């Protein structure tokens, strides 16, 4: 029953793709799309650079921050700290871009800064929550065996929180890639150039030449971080690798 349903859905999906393909071929969309292929390659590289730099910086800041907030000493201030970071997510990315432009000027630097801010929270929160959810008795056992705090963190806490931490990184980076097009608005470059220009000129093929690679990039980042999680999280605590 369940199987046949998904089979029908699959067939319907394929039909739809086929019809879309035929339609876009007829309307010259595909031809138009490939007209921009050089731009696509160049801007995709720029797009990935922006993503990689801002995402990388965000990870480098967020993970130590999450670890620090999970230490007993900082726990009292952890929630208020988290609220502060929350602002980075609550305020629209466009507004952050505008604000960072006002003191960092235009170009890729303010774009990277703004993307960083917008990406930080999911990683910090997941690191923090992941570490806090490591059962107390594991830490007691580790203490009782004579591990130092650093050994407990590296050998017990982080490996057990890694899956949740990866989930945070995955969400954050996917959002990041999807947000990079906005960087074009402050001169940061990236595939936003095709999207926004396409909108302004009312050029459907140009718009799609920016939008489709952006979505493909986002999906591939999602998949590759997922793959990393699959490979790096120890098998004993990796829900992707054991049967329930």
């Amino acid at each position, binding site marked *: 029953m369940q199987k046949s349903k998904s089979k029908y859905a699959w067939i319907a999906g394929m039909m739809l793709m086929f019809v879309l393909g035929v339609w876009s071929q007829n309307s010259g969309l595909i031809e138009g799309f490939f007209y921009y292929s050089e731009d696509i390659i160049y801007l995709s590289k720029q797009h990935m650079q922006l993503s990689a730099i801002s995402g990388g910086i965000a990870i480098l800041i967020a993970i130590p921050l999450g670890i620090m907030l999970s230490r007993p000493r900082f726990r009292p201030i952890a929630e208020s700290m988290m609220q502060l970071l929350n602002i980075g997510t609550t305020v629209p990315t466009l507004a952050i871009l505008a604000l960072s432009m006002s003191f960092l000027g235009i170009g890729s630097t303010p774009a990277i800064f703004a993307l960083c801010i917008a990406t930080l929270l999911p990683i910090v929160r997941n690191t923090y929550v992941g570490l806090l959810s490591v059962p107390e008795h594991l830490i007691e056992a580790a203490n009782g065996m004579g*591990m130092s705090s650093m050994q407990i963190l590296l050998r*017990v806490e982080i490996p057990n929180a890694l899956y949740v931490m990866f989930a945070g990184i995955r969400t954050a980076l996917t959002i990041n890639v999807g947000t990079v097009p906005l960087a074009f608005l402050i001169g940061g470059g990236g595939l936003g150039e095709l999207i926004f220009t396409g909108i302004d000129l009312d050029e459907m093929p140009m718009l799609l030449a920016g939008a489709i690679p952006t979505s493909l990039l986002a999906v591939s980042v999602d998949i590759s971080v997922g793959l990393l999680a699959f490979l790096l999280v120890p098998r004993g605590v990796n829900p992707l690798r054991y049967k329930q």
Partner: protein
Amino acid sequence: MIRLENLTKTFETPEGIITAADNINMTVGKGEICVLLGPSGCGKTTTLKMLNRIVPPTSGKVFIDGEDTSTLNTIDLRRNIGYVIQQIGLFPNMTIAENISVVPKLLGWDKTRYTARAEELLAMVALEPKTFMRRFPRELSGGQQQRIGVIRALAADPEVMLMDEPFGAIDPINRAVIQDEFLKMQQTLQKTILFVSHDIDEAIKMADKIAIFDEGKLIQFDSPDNLLAHPCNKFVENFVGSDRTLKRLRLAKVSEVMTPAPTPVKRDDDLQHALKIMHERDYIAVTLVDEFGRPIGTINRDLAGSKRGRCGDHFYGLRAIANVNDDLRSVASSMFSNDTTWMPCVDDDGVFRGEISQRGVTHYLGATYRRQERDNTLNRET
């Protein structure tokens, strides 16, 4: 050897100072299991955790093998004490082999040494090393996990082990099996063990010494038999239960209580011979054994007096036989279920070794009270 000297722990709470452990003094000899027993919140776990400073003591000292542990660095101290907790606490991110090797690795053993040690320990608890070394904790049953928890604590061969309700989370059947396994291991390992429990039956089974706690105070520190026979106050009496003398049955073996090797008769002996033995030795009955010395029946005075012929032709069959290694509890149970007051005792080869009677058991259990009465009388006289 572990010695606690005025060990005290107080907590400051908004309602005032709470004393979790109040001037605890006790000495546990090398190779002994001491069970800390009491209701929850009595201070037994706090006392245990002060030994490896999971709970730092407010005052007082802990000596291990005569060495004052307050002079040691906390991390070194903990690496030299085996620690087993109720939740087992296996690290789910590590394989079984890695879990067992945690402390050896911390101590800087090389790989061949700690791998060999892990294999040896797994074999000791009858878990096939080849199968289990590379598994993860979640792939094991509760009982298997608990065994790993215990051998992990043994990995670096510490002299002292602390066990906080180690078998508390296992179902009763598996618990009994693991307790037996553990006691067997302990016979060869001879570790000095502090063991927290809230279960009086577990304590009686495992302990060489029992320390009963209540409201942070050590109430009585004694051998299990003494604790059951002479509880020092109403609290201990209630805690050990009204059937405490029945519990003592578990502490004695048949070999300690039986009448050793009374003269048996053989099949070919004449009934007159049996009667003679009974007269000479003042027995009311005599046991009949086969050519290998295994008991097959019994002959009493009436039978021997009223019949003529060989013993092998006139005897009563046996209702039950006790093994010399059985505890008195199973003997008593067997007596009740077979409606008999007397049983022959055999060794592991089935050879007749002695006799045990209900009277003998009662006499054995009462001995400690008679001794106390005699001491009291002596004290009064002097």
